[in-house]
């Protein structure tokens, strides 16, 4: 197990190098550079000024040299300085990471809290009205774009229920939890619900498969109560495949937060990334892609570990 873990951790290094190099080269092959946005018309008027800025940002060197220098900084956990604000990317990201992490965790909790119970009930009462309603809901959630749901909520709820996006600006969770939750709960529900269709369907399929097993019949014939059979015998085994889907859901949350944050004006990483890519603020774009990749890689590892923890038959070596 220990050996396996070390091997996986070592393999992460080439993977992350690959991701960062890809992002690095792609960013530098883009037409135009940060000076177009910084200088506006002055850039064309004064090539010297443009050159000076490029030199200042280290953009005048060859791409491989830039990359190695950047890697050196990353090794010291220094993400560089934002071209636009002039502040360090670490400070810029710090406060925003808190916001996005909160949104992501809330979304994940909502996602599981909706998906797993509905999936279980759907399977236990197969082909009942609840099952049909649950499956229809799951399919609808899979097909409806989350930004559309958000827009509909803003228009319809505003029109018919006098409820709208809170007009106050965003407050941190630790400053005023209640105001913060009022602000974040709806975006989190949309983000969480829109992915829960997948979890519902997976839970249902897995439960149906497990409920047909011999040991479930044994449990029934022992006269155990339904709740015990479902929760203690079936669910534990059915959750194994579901865990893998949770891992797949992490990148979806990262992507979804870009959209939801931009709709609800939440000052998180997603919205920052969105504006940074527009302005070609390369250090920020690189940092966010790297962080995203790190989260995804660790989520995948966590899934594999959880898999072997839940299913003792699977042993990694």
């Amino acid at each position, binding site marked *: 197990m220990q050996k396996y873990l070390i091997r996986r951790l070592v393999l992460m290094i080439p993977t992350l190098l690959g991701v960062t190099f890809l992002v690095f080269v792609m960013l530098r092959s883009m037409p135009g550079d940060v000076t177009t946005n910084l200088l506006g018309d002055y850039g064309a008027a004064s090539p010297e000024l443009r050159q000076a800025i490029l030199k200042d940002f280290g953009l005048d060197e060859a791409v491989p040299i830039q990359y190695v220098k950047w890697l050196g900084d990353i090794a010291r956990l220094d993400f560089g300085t934002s071209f636009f604000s002039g502040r360090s990317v670490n400070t810029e990201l710090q406060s925003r990471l808190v916001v996005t992490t909160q949104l992501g965790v809330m979304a994940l909790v909502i996602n599981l809290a909706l998906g797993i119970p509905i999936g279980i009930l759907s399977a236990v009462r197969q082909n009942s009205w609840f099952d049909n309603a649950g499956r229809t809901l799951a399919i609808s959630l899979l097909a409806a*774009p989350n930004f559309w749901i958000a827009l509909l909520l803003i228009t319809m709820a505003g029109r018919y229920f006098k409820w709208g996006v809170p007009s106050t600006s965003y407050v941190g969770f630790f400053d005023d939890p209640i105001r913060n939750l009022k602000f974040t709960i709806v975006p989190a529900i949309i983000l969480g619900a829109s992915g829960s269709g997948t979890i519902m369907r997976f839970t249902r399929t897995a439960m149906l498969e497990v409920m047909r097993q011999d040991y479930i019949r044994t449990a029934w014939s022992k006269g155990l109560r339904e709740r015990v059979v479902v929760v203690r015998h079936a669910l534990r085994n059915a959750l194994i495949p579901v865990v893998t889907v949770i891992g797949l859901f992490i990148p979806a949350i*990262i992507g979804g937060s870009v959209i939801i944050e931009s709709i609800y004006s939440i000052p998180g990483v997603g919205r920052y*990334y969105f504006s940074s890519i527009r302005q070609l603020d390369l250090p920020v774009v690189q940092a966010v892609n790297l962080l995203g*990749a790190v989260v995804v890689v660790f989520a995948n590892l966590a899934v594999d570990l959880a898999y072997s923890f839940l299913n003792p038959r699977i042993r990694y070596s």
Partner: protein
Amino acid sequence: MATAQQTLERGAVSGALPFHQRWTKSTLKFIKRYPLGAVGAFFVIVLVAMAAVPQVFTPMETQDPLKQSILTRLEGPSASNWLGTDDLGRDVWARIVYGARTSIIIGFGTVIVAKTLSTAIGTVSGYYSGWFDTVFQRVIDIGAALPGLVFLILAVTVLAPRMPDVLFIQSDILAIILAVSVLNAVNSSRTVRSVALSLREEQYVDAARSLGATNMRIMTKHIVPNLFSIVLVSASLLVGSSVLLESSLSFLGYGVQPPSPSWGRMLNEAREFLTRAPHLAIFPGLLIFLTVWSFNMLGDALRDKLDPRLRGSN
């Protein structure tokens, strides 16, 4: 084996019927057995028709997706503008109909590119499983670590200005197809690879090899055809997800650029007029929803039909 038997059975039942009757019969059977899949298939046909001949669906002269009319801007649905008009007075229904072309091109384009790539990579990787496999698995690790939409935004921004316009496909649409396809192909080649790995051990592959078949022949004649059903099922689900991705990108302003109408961008433009003209936010989203829903339903039905092990489980 199973397929041969099925063909026999089918032949015994309907072999005597002429072609069109047989076709009607099997269609009716599909509708009866998979009603939701049939509804999905129906919508898919309508969407493809919209993409192919949008003029048929927009008969009135007010219904031109690009014609602006500033006097009738932001109007609700009416007899001449069935779904109302947008901020430039353009007809929403016409823009939705013409937007179908964008979505369909992206949906099918992604499937063709992604599935060709993933089948090729997965088959070669699984069949040879030598240095190519080792190298490729590391590349695939990189692909699997890319943070989805975050990376796609970057990829499309980088690719779009460098792409040529191919036939009637705009460069930005081509960039989306390419970016989504590569990302999907890298990830889904894993499934193909694992199936190819097990197919390699089949007796008929040994038989072919002992008859002197080349590796190329074994792959194209014996392995790829057996991958067909899993590729087909994942293809129909991919159409839905690539339509969703395109609309997300366009909604954020990184996807399809004007003048091609795109449902995602229509929703983005609607954001400014949510209180004045809510109809702008409803219909394009409804179409995205219907499109994704239809392809998913069709995919589910196809999966049930092609993979008997899963029948009735979902």
